[in-house]
């Protein structure tokens, strides 16, 4: 049995238990998001996917669709707010797109393009975050972490390893790895882990694979994020 709700006036069918974002995704309608990934339980933390449901704002990745809901997404107000959130993520970390291996494949960067972000707007925080190059095959560059916790969920729920977790609180929230030394080399992490494949930005990088695909020919160079299906 199928129900429907409307998203920006368009009728969207959904199955029982689906969230607004899942239903929109299935119907080919893009709602910006960073911490959501179809393979994992929704987290609801980045708030990029916020929509207006019957006049109230809520994260569409965690809100179950209900019959007859009236949902707004592509409004100027919401996109302004999403852009501000994206800018917040940029100034919170250290993001230097031109020298970043993930440039062109980065969901944060692609989302910024999608939302027409022209500058970081806010004052940069310039946090001091160490890089972990201890692992033979993987580099961890925490400067780019947006705390989406996809690697946490992947390692815990798929790999069964709990290699990653969030620690700290507030603006000091940060990613930690499962070792007394705090170094990735002292964990059982491998490149074959699901957690190695889900980072939406450039934190978890395979070593010795620098710029194999030139910038300009990468995923989001070819098509804007709203028109791609990978990683959704």
């Amino acid at each position, binding site marked *: 049995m199928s129900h429907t709700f409307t998203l920006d006036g368009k009728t969207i069918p959904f199955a029982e238990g689906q969230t607004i974002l899942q239903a929109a995704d299935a119907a080919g309608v893009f709602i910006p998001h960073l911490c959501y990934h179809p393979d994992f339980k929704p987290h609801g933390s980045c708030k990029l996917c916020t929509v207006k449901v019957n006049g109230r704002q809520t994260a569409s990745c965690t809100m179950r669709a209900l019959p007859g809901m009236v949902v707004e997404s592509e409004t100027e107000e919401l996109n302004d707010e999403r852009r501000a959130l994206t800018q917040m993520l940029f100034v919170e970390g250290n993001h230097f797109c031109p020298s970043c291996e993930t440039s062109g494949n980065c969901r944060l960067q692609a989302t910024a393009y999608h939302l027409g972000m022209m500058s970081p707007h806010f004052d940069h925080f310039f946090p001091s975050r160490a890089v972990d190059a201890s692992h033979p095959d993987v580099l961890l560059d925490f400067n780019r972490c947006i705390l989406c916790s996809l690697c946490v969920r992947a390692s815990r729920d798929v790999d069964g390893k709990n290699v990653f*977790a969030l620690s*700290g609180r507030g603006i000091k929230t940060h990613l930690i790895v499962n070792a*007394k030394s705090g170094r990735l080399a002292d964990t059982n992490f491998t490149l074959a882990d699901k957690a190695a494949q889900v980072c939406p930005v450039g934190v978890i990088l395979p070593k010795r694979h620098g710029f194999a695909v030139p910038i300009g020919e990468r995923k989001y160079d070819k098509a804007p994020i709203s028109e791609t299906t990978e990683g959704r």
Partner: protein
Amino acid sequence: MGSFREVEVALNEMHAEAVAGIVDRVATRHRRDPTCMLQILREVQEACDWLPPEAIDRLQVVLGVPRTKIEGVAGFYAFLYTQPRGKYRILFSDNVTDRMQGSVALMERLCSSLWVEPGKVSEDGLLSVDITSCTGMCDQGPGLLVNNYAIPRLTAGLVDEIAELIRNKVPLAEWPADYFRVDDNVRRADVLLAAQMAPGDALRAARARAPSDGLMASNMRSWREGLPSGLGGPIAMLDDMKRANLRGRGGAGFMTGIKWEACRNAPLKPGQERFVVCNADEGEPGTFKDRVLLTSHADLVFEGMTAAAYAIGARRGFLYLRGEYRYLLEPLTAVLERRRREKVLGNDILGLPGADFDIEIHLGAGAYVCGEESALIESLEGKRGTPRNRPPFPVTNGYLDQPTIVNNVETFAAAALVALNGGEWYASIGTKHSAGTKLLSVSGDCERPGIYEYPFGVSIRQVLADCGARDTQAVQVSGPSGVCVAPAEFDRVIGFEDIPTAGAFTIFDNSRDMFEVARNYVHFFQHESCGFCTPCRVGTSLLKNLMDKLHNGVGSPYDFAEIEKLNQLLQAMSHCGLGHTACNPVLDTIARFRPAYEQRMTQQDFTPAFDLDRALAEARQMTGRDDAGAHLSSKHGGAA
């Protein structure tokens, strides 16, 4: 040959063994249950002064959980330390009332007396001094915590004595007991604070009012199995709660009877049960009425929890006590123990076979956000205190995913009165939409700060007159997440139909700078943001930076507009109430005390917050210089 290295290794092993022994002892007491992680970490720290890596090594083994999970929890709570913080860990309460009472100067005095920098550990590793969010001693401040034990009524003399005790390494247990005396300061008592009730009276009254078909057997069955439609007593109790029109006293004002009924009617999966949780995480700056209830009326609170268990069919309850009230743990444990002996708690309550309900106390560890009910439940489960996605709500999916009611301390105390005297009696007090009485925690600029209990409907003006407030400029009702009220509104009343409140009533006279009040509150929210969602995590920091920028004299109308934009974003996009209300103090003070902000906009055009001369402060400190040559002459605004 026995080298230094070998001695060092041997010493480390001894240390690791000792730590492992402590961890084993604590973990065993908690049945090696990972849901008790926060309690275990807190107790290990009480024994070790911090959480050394060896303790986490051992916990990994005895609890069977990954290290990341332990470190994630330890890193979340402000009172847990994964780095040494000294044998004496001093935290000055940094509520705006503490500041008004001189806390800043007192902290400087202690720091210079003991040669320690705020926020750092002393060179000899003996102590650390820092600030913490409101410790709930606003009516007898300024206050501090030493190793989580509260000392109110600080003076310069007392600070000097404390410095001397620390210098002489006098163990905390040998410090004068009078330092730690906390007064109730009840200034006005009404039906709740004046209630004369022997333990068990309310439970007996509730049972006596049950209709005659509510025979003992059906009550017991209902209690034991939590049947959604049990006859008699429990349903009669629920009906009384609904008739009482009692609304939650934590501030949100949800109908308590409806919450209880929803929990009672929530389906149970096999092996599940229902839970009663008392929210004593009284973290809203300026609120301290739960402290007084738990100090002098704990029976009322526990009786209310037991009545709730009776109504919803629960066998287990928790009191989640904020870490700042650590000193109440032993007295409250003793009250629970006495109630068990008196047969009003534990097994076969009132001598009814199968009528079982017991209460455990869990302590928080310095996290305001855990006052949000779903974050509180996460914390009860031994996790980071991150608010959950809602729905589902705790009444169906609460503690360990089972039906749970979470109510404020004062709500349970009021529920005990409802059980004792019936719902109609309770509903006759107060106003139509706000039944009963409300405890106000009055502090700030007044002659008689303390606890005032009024029937709902009392005006701000009346409270101000009663507590001896003069030249009042503003009242912050319900703390920073509440509303700021100016003199023109002093005829407004306390009640859900006008100004709802969790109880804080902070008074500012004409000598206070309302911009600085708002700035203190913004710092509070920034410190307490859990960091889960982007808007609150980053937004509260941006807001803090902007308020500091105005404070530093480089604010312009541009920054003012930025503040208003951030306010909007926080309200619209945040995950929980903390983010939604984080901008309230700024919005309210802008609306009512705009000149206090305009005074701060000293620049016409945008001026960077970055100040070259201030950035050199660290270099000046390192070189011990403060002469003209160590400063840049040019100031902001272009003048050389």
